[in-house]
């Protein structure tokens, strides 16, 4: 038998545990906390595996959350001393060596959730390097090491997603489902109703057209000049995939890589590190025309057939005069439903569409978003890294640059 003290300590720990999960971004409400306590009461704490499984079944209802849950569980219940050490470390700011090793293996989101007070200090000040002119013919093969996602970024992506969803509106499908405001008669349902009423036809049932979630194809430029934005954009691509849209993601610098499968990993951080390892041309030169040609030839017919919306994230800084960029853009335009171009370069004051590449691409774009969405993408990264964020207003007025 457990003493009263033990029980109340467990309950306290459970509440703290749930609050940490919530801060780390898991949808854990008060109801779940009570469920978790009940689950623990039912399973007991004698066997750690059962205890963990019971908590996980209640608190992590999505495979995306398993990794975070498991780490939090490890910190909280596997090693009580570790938790104390972690808390002390994070609060004091000094990191003893053993704790440092542990810290590296933990997700950034969880670390932040454990130390909400010191979150501001955590953000490193970083000088933004302006590398807009690093286009080159040379193919630079480099590995990319993405930082893990922070809490602030996570909520920023969610925010961004809400706006972006409206860009990719649902399309009417040719499928029907029964519904009271339908346009056609649902004979099968009517017959069922009729049989229920002893053969009396009271009212014909109707069916209406269903809507199909949009198919979105994301093409992300990962050349040197775009290195600030690719990470945020990939997070965005990953989040978009969890909303029910069919998302095909491609990245290109000097070559085109399909990363759709990788992006299906439920955990955003793991998906991005897989992508980082797979793609070989990070932060190198740009061959937009050639990459688009490759996309048109190899993938266009495979992923664009269902009325897809194409979102192209690129600065358009292609200086290869030989390229048939305009022609490839036109082909892309004619084979998709909508071509949206997000161009982060436009956040720089005094931008004009002077670059030859941009001039050749612009006529074929349905929607050119220099200001709002891209600057939120760009600013997001800027704000998180440098700590000041007054850019948005400055560039949102530049919507007419196109």
């Amino acid at each position, binding site marked *: 038998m457990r003493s009263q003290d033990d029980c109340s300590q467990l309950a306290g720990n459970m509440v703290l545990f749930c609050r940490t999960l919530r801060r780390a971004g898991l949808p854990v409400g008060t109801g779940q906390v009570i469920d978790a306590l009940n689950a623990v009461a039912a399973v007991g704490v004698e066997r750690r595996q059962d205890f963990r499984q019971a908590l996980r079944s209640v608190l992590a209802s999505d495979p995306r959350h398993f990794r975070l849950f498991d780490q939090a569980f490890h910190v909280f219940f596997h090693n009580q001393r570790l938790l104390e050490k972690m808390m002390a470390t994070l609060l004091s700011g000094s990191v003893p060596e053993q704790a440092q090793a542990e810290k590296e293996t933990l997700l950034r989101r969880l670390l932040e959730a454990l130390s909400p007070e010191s979150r501001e200090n955590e953000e490193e000040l970083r000088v933004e390097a302006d590398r807009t002119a690093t286009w080159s013919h040379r193919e630079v093969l480099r590995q990319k090491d993405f930082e893990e996602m922070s809490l602030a970024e996570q909520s920023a992506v969610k925010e961004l997603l809400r706006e972006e969803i409206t860009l990719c509106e649902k399309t009417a*499908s*040719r*499928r*029907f489902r029964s519904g009271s405001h339908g346009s056609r008669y649902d*004979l*099968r349902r009517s*017959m069922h109703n*009729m*049989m229920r009423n*002893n*053969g009396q036809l009271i009212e014909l049932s109707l069916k209406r057209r269903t809507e*199909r979630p949009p198919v979105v194809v994301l093409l992300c430029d990962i050349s040197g000049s775009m290195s600030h934005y690719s990470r945020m954009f990939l997070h965005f691509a990953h989040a978009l995939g969890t909303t029910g849209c069919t998302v095909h993601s491609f990245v290109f610098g000097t070559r085109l890589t399909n990363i759709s499968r990788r992006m299906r990993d439920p955990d955003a951080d793991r998906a991005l590190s897989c992508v980082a390892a797979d793609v070989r041309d990070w932060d190198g030169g740009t061959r937009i025309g050639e990459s688009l040609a490759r996309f*048109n*030839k190899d993938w266009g*017919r*495979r*992923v664009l*057939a*269902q009325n897809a919306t194409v979102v192209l994230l690129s600065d358009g800084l292609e200086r290869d005069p030989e390229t048939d960029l305009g*022609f490839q853009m036109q082909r892309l335009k004619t084979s998709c439903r909508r071509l949206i171009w997000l161009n982060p370069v436009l956040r720089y004051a005094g931008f004009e569409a002077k670059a030859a590449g941009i001039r050749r691409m612009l006529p074929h774009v349905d929607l050119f978003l220099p200001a709002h969405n891209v600057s939120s993408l760009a600013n997001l990264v800027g704000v998180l890294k440098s700590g000041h964020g007054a850019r948005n207003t400055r560039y949102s007025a530049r919507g007419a640059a196109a």
Partner: protein
Amino acid sequence: MVDAGGGVSLPQDLDQVQDLLGRGDYIAGRDLATVIYLALRMGRPLLLEGEAGVGKTEIANVLARTLGRDLIRLQCYEGLDLASAAYEWNYPRQMVAIRMAEAEGRAADVGSSIYGRDYLIARPLLRALETHAGGPPVLLIDELDRADEPFEAFLLELLSDFQLSIPELGTVKAAQPPIVIITSNRTREVHDALRRRCLYHWVEYPDFGTETRIVEVKAPGISAELRRQLIGFVQELRKQDLFKRPGIAETLDWANALAHLDAVTLQPGLVDDTLGLLLKYQDDIAKIRGSEAAQLLAQIQVGH
């Protein structure tokens, strides 16, 4: 090789498969013959992918013809639903039955009878599960990539268990599984769950020898020399960086066109004039027409 059902019995080895296809004027490479043999022996659906015009659909036609089976074809399109793919209740007939029963004063017990087999209209998928005189039919599900994902999900039950669940009636199961051929042009990726239930084969463009035999059989009206030239040209053309490479269907069209034009040898002018039979995109035609075509022709002559 005649079985009890009246149809031809299934081939016992790979050579017999090639013979069988050959009798249907279909020249298949060893790899394709292998996968067809396995599909027939293992009773598994066969998913064929490949560029347009490489003869995917024709395989089903030939199998049905040479095995003496019925061919049931389902052409897929977006929004294809149960009512047009599998079954539909015969509502007018049900309605009449109810009214008749009412008139005879036995409306209460009509409920069980109007959801009987008599009132069911079988569409291709359900027909494929029924018993056919010549043995299990060949079910061709053509261009599956044109259908939407909900339809694909619906196919899963049919492809793994060869049965259909009809809520009002129960489960209809095939006494003998049909031979299922599914084709896709890859305008959309077919879902993994469906791929898992099928044998998969990517139908390639044929090599020189295979294509020669195909043209011999399908377009006999041209001379051997012209045949050699035109196939050589098409084979070279497929190596070019084109948006859409010509398939076998295009080769045959071209061969027949050249026969109609009474051509004896390939000349640059003739190639330019008839290039539209091989290439279906203006950019591709513009790229090849003229000097490029002449160069390819010269290459073939040298190769000879």
